């Protein structure tokens, strides 16, 4: 079994070429869009970027969780998680357009004179200037990427060394890094979600915001892992290892993240709705008193209710095809959720979806997936020298 895994590396050439071509075409089309409407280009870019980095960050977090918790599900999904976490250097480069377009994206980055018409907004921006200013914003972003690249590359490096040497000590080293790593993840995601999304409306704040993003990222990542494992397990050798029992476990974890996300999202809504304070409620009135409310209702039904009810079924979780279909819906709805969070800020509270909002994620996604596939194909699809792998394989074969 292990020999097969070692000797048959994944062939991703065709996929990589296709993903790159699709991605580059989509980005080229958006490039034309940038000439027509540069402001919209940057705003659509932020949405697409936050979506894809969410998958990478979620995978990084789950990678550390599985190092700490152990379990067969972690062993079979570890390589997918590691490959997704290895995309941070690419994502750091892809962040550059956000930095360039900062004045088109964030109200607070515009010169004070342009805000003069809205006194209340100008006041809020002025009060938060100590935190919300361009140099500090960029310095913070640089710090987040330094942390994410350092943690992800160290985890990947040790795991690669274990592939070569089979050193058991590395397992406890990986575990030792994962604890503090998760704390760093929590702090950086909290700050980055405030920086990149919450500050779109500089007046509004919500203390649960970081948690809401973590829940969402975990959910995106679980759905992504399920989708990738479903494709990989279509062929030997992974079809021998990733069995219904593993999909069952992964499905349960996706359900857990789904419930967590819904819990956070509902907590935020209920408390702000009940408080009905002038400094908070506008964020929701923009979303429930315009046509955005249909998107919001769609989120309740398709982002929560439908996946929740379906994931309660044991049969569905054990069925590769139906679980993958559901994971696809979840990934799509994650994007819609982010659109619901950002869109009303960009369209002055009224409903609007630009064609670049749809094309841009395809563009970034194509490049991201090509990079991911390259990383995934570099090594065997399972951690073949992990001390627990033998047990896991026999367990999976049962």
């Amino acid at each position, binding site marked *: 079994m292990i020999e097969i895994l070692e000797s048959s590396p994944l062939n991703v050439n065709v996929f990589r070429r296709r993903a790159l071509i699709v991605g580059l075409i989509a980005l080229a089309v958006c490039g034309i869009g940038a000439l027509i409407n540069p402001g919209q280009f940057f705003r659509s870019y932020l949405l697409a970027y936050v979506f894809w980095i969410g998958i990478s960050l979620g995978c990084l977090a789950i990678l550390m969780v599985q190092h700490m918790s152990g379990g067969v599900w972690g062993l079979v999904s570890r390589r997918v998680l590691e490959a997704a976490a290895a995309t941070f250097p690419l994502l750091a480069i892809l962040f550059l357009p956000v930095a360039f377009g900062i004045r088109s994206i964030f109200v607070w980055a515009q010169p004070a004179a342009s805000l003069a018409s809205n006194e209340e907004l100008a006041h809020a921006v002025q009060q938060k200037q100590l935190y919300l200013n361009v140099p500090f914003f960029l310095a913070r972003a640089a710090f987040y990427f330094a942390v994410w690249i350092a943690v992800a590359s160290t985890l990947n490096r040790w795991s690669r060394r274990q592939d070569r040497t089979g050193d058991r000590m590395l397992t406890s080293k990986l575990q030792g890094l994962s604890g503090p790593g998760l704390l760093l993840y929590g702090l950086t995601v909290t700050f980055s979600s405030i920086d990149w999304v919450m500050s779109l409306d500089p007046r509004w704040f919500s203390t649960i915001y970081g948690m809401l993003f973590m829940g969402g990222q975990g959910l995106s990542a679980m759905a992504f892992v399920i989708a990738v494992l479903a494709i990989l397990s279509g062929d030997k050798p992974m079809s021998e290892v990733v069995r219904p029992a593993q999909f069952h476990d992964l499905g349960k974890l996706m359900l857990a993240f789904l419930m967590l996300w819904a819990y956070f999202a509902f907590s935020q809504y209920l408390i702000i709705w009940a*408080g009905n304070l002038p400094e908070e409620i506008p964020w929701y009135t923009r979303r429930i008193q315009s046509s955005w409310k249909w998107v919001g209702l769609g989120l309740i039904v398709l982002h929560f209710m439908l996946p929740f009810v379906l994931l309660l079924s044991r049969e569905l979780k054990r069925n590769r095809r139906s679980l993958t279909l559901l994971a696809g819906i979840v990934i799509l709805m994650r994007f819609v959720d982010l659109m619901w969070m950002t869109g009303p800020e960009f369209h002055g509270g009224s409903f609007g979806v630009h064609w670049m909002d749809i094309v841009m994620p395809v563009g970034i996604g194509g490049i991201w997936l090509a990079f991911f596939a390259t990383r995934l194909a570099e090594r065997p699809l399972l951690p073949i020298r992990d001390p627990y792998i033998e047990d896991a394989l026999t367990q999976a074969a049962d």
Partner: protein
Amino acid sequence: MSKEDVLKSNINSDLLRPVFKTGIGWYITVAISGSLLLAAMGAFGYQLYSGIGVWGLNRPVMWAFDITNFVFWIGISHAGTLISAILRVTGAEWRRPVTRCAEAITVFALMIGAMFPIVHLGRPYLFYWLAPYPNSRGLWPNYRSPLLWDFFAINTYLLGSLIYLYLPLIPDLALVRDKAKGLRHKIYSIASLGWRGTQVQWSRLEKAVGVMAVIIIPVAVSVHTIVSWDFAMTIRPMWHSTIFGPYFVAGAIFSGIAALIMAMAVIRKVFHLEAYLKPIHFNNLGLLLLTMSLLWFYFTFAEYLTSYYGNERVEKAVFQSKISGAYAPLFWAMVVCCFVIPMPILAIKKLRTISGTVAASALIVVGMWLERFLIIVPTLSQPALPFNWGSYRPTWVEITLTAGTFGYFVLLYAVFTKLFPIVAVWEFKEGLTLADHAGSVAEPQRLVAHGD
């Protein structure tokens, strides 16, 4: 005989000894904790007679020690469910000697916590008006109030955790029944519900415990979330915070694990269960406690940082009073007790011993009580309009009531250990059998059936 065989042959006598033999220490414990409880009952009687004015409460601080105790004890009650249910659901083998200690904490802490809103009522005997029942006075509870949700959530949780405590108790009750004589035999016969240890009974029990473990987790989370909404649904500064639900739940689990570690250490020492509650259990619970300590730190940080970022004037006043104002000594004591000292103790393997984890737990319990106090009182003493600001000092009545809760808890726990085996006998034996058969796929045999 090897060491393990000696252990195996002694399981019944070791674990049932506290039930059948009563030492002098037990009477002393009951006397001390009972007198604390009596003192609290006296204070409560005095309060009923003179009115709630005998507490230090006054406008604007209308909630203080009592609601702190309410939130604190409901928090402690999260030890049982969250530890026992999560460990059961994830199939962690080391849980076996720990589960019952934890489940008992849940039930008793919940009973104590739920008392306080009633104690706080001007007319405690009318608390049943919360229940929506048809009545001629046209009373109908306000469904929009989280205080009413509390009533439903806590009762659901109490019922659920009683069932969850009772189900795994049945085989052990049968064990006591078979050893006991006379009246005791009769009582345990009724309590063990005709348990004979047949295959069908075992499989049903296992299924029922499994289902309850899954159900009780969302119930537990909902309870402390709703407790947090008592505060967050208002628009008071630093209460009206979206993170409150998970923040309270995390704090609850945190203090619950700390209470569990302390209870286990006492039981281990008093009943000489060194062979059952081993350093590994304290180590593992210590690691969970470490995780919760970091999580607690994250939540506190996120809550305070985002308030600071939000920069609301009324929030800032409360924020300042905690960080550097009148409440600063308590605030920093809380940070030291919940994070600064326990974190290194729990993180360094050499210090994560039994005495290390117990010391950390004691600090955490104190720190978490302070946390609940600091959530409640600074906000109330500084409402949005400054003309209304005030301060708060507890009176002897509140302090006695608070001390009484600890006495009551110890008393209930001591009585529980007298009536029921505090370490689940059958679960422990099942673990040993499973370990013997590790690797084989055969159906695990039971060491304990009818009378062993």
